């Protein structure tokens, strides 16, 4: 069991982070090259000010028309994304690892808060799954790729929650949790999760077009 732990926190972790960081970097770089080559008439209008205007307006809950028209989704997706990022980054148990391996230390979330936030992520995943199954306009367009993305994101939080509460065998669960987290990291550049890498730019592009050319809001 110790050997397995050593492996998943050692070589496998390096591999996952490597794939995540290098993969994301490569995808961004190659997409930029493609945009400059094939989308020159769009690229020419990219504008930092209008990009930020659009991004900021969409980062405010219930500000954009899309959020106002989909209140359940708005609450769910904001809660989901905030917790999704905050919990893994600021969890005490994770910061301890950073300290142990690299001597880095920073602020942490109290464990009970992180626990509730984990439940928020899991509840949001249930809402997403429920929409895919029960809401016609979502079910109609749902594909295997969408389910895969949802499963990849759910597993690290589910296993983390079970490990923290020592349900089932802790040793097995913690290794499953680490592997699930590593799968998620490595999957980001190459699955639907790549919206983490690209969404800011698709939004920025639309903001640039609406701001600079069409002189209208895009939110």
């Amino acid at each position, binding site marked *: 069991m110790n050997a397995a732990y050593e492996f998943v926190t050692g070589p496998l972790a390096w591999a996952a982070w490597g794939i995540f960081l290098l993969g994301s970097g490569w995808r961004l770089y190659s997409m930029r090259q493609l945009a400059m*080559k094939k989308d020159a008439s*769009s690229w020419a209008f990219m504008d930092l000010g209008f990009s930020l205007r659009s991004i900021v307006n*969409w980062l405010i809950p219930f500000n954009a028309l*899309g959020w106002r*028209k989909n209140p359940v989704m708005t609450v769910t997706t904001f809660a989901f994304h905030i917790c999704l990022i905050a919990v893994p980054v600021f969890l005490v148990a994770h910061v301890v690892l950073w300290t142990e391996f690299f001597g880095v230390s920073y602020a942490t979330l109290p464990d009970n808060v992180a626990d509730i936030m984990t439940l928020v992520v899991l509840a949001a995943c249930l809402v997403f799954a429920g929409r895919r199954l029960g809401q*016609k306009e979502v079910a109609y367009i749902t594909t295997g790729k969408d389910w895969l993305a949802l499963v990849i994101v759910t597993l690290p939080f589910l296993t983390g929650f079970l490990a923290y509460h020592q349900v089932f065998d802790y040793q097995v669960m913690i290794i499953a949790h680490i592997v699930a987290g590593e799968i998620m990291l490595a999957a980001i550049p190459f699955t639907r999760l790549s919206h983490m890498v690209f969404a800011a730019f698709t939004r920025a592009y639309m903001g640039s077009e609406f701001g600079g050319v069409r002189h209208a809001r895009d939110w």
Partner: protein
Amino acid sequence: MGIQERLIEDVGLRRGVSQLTPEKIEKVVNAVLKGETGARLKTYAETCMRCGMCAEACHFAGSHPGDPSYTPAGKVHQTMSVLLDKKGRVDPDFVYGMAQLAYTECNLCRRCVHLCPIGIDTAYIMSTVRRICHKLGVTPQYMQDTAHSHASTFNQMWVKDDEWTDSLMWQEDEAREEFPGLRIPLDKEGADIYYSVIAPEPKFRTQLIYQAAAIMHMAGVDWTMPAQTGWDNSDMCMFSGDFEMMGRLKRQHFESAQKLKVKRIVMGECGHAFRSVYDVGNRWLGWRWHPVPVIHAVEFYWELIQEGKIKLAKKFPGPVTIQDPCNIVRGRGLQEKLREVTRFLVDGDIIEMHPNREHNYCCAAGGGVINCGPPFKNVRVDGNLVKAEQLKATGVKTVITPCHNCHGGLHDIIHHHKLGMELKFLSDIIYECMEKPEV
């Protein structure tokens, strides 16, 4: 649910599809995808999280509750997503449905941009589907006829060169009875304003040219209209997917203005034409901005009013409502100027439709949908129950909309639902209410 269950017979689509083979389809699809698309399509296809939030955006979806195949993402799901997943290996029957959907069930109005958190431009995706259909030779007959007219005559309505100048001189002649001294100056070099219209104006809405001439005359504007091709600023080729021809049309329009050394182009009250000249054609030609400045009639009238050049003898009795045309509101942000002009002209309130301005619903005629002709008329009328309800809720008798397509679309909706409303261009009202000489 889906397009295959609501196919409509169209000669153009049927004939085009009959000449296809799976090999030809695969070759053309991949030629367009590889040759003409890039990061935009790739990121849109990959990062659309299939959240379904865009369903709220579309008037087609809102008018067919419970049928997800009309939602923006649902339309992409049935067309571009399949082409990408199957790498173009689809059969001719699929192409029929794909073409019908792309040409007649999406107005390219871009309202869905306001509902998508990551800013996916469904109109761009559907335009690309249309581009593929055009290259496959599968286009609705009526729309293709206008595209052929563009290719043969540089105008949309088969107007012959002499008919064009005859129509202008006829209107000038008529108008001089009411406005002695009025001219429609043809090919006047160095004029301040080059006024261009869409071909339906000389063809069957000639009074709009009369009214424009009257407004120019009374405002003392130094203006001209071209006697040669280039006068038609409309562009069905942009919507059929014939981008090569679109480029030729826009070049002709701009070059005609350049040859006359005019200061600015003012475009009549049309939305799609404005999109083609202001936003799309210039890019195809490799111009970031326009070689001659371009403004829409709404902005032009707004300027004339600011300068005190439009004098009213009376005001138009309100209340009125405003239909915001997608291509000058989401496409150019003219919503406030449109309201300022309307407030100047109308005695009474503007009863807004909800939602309005950038968030307004499309008329369901734009994007070339009305140009697909009678076979698809009910697609757009039934597909815009949302607009009928919006109009009805205002309770007013007059709808102002500075766009030909909005007029066409709303006209049919108003009649179908017996709403008893009349449609007005701004120039209708300006002409009706402005000071006229004592003759």
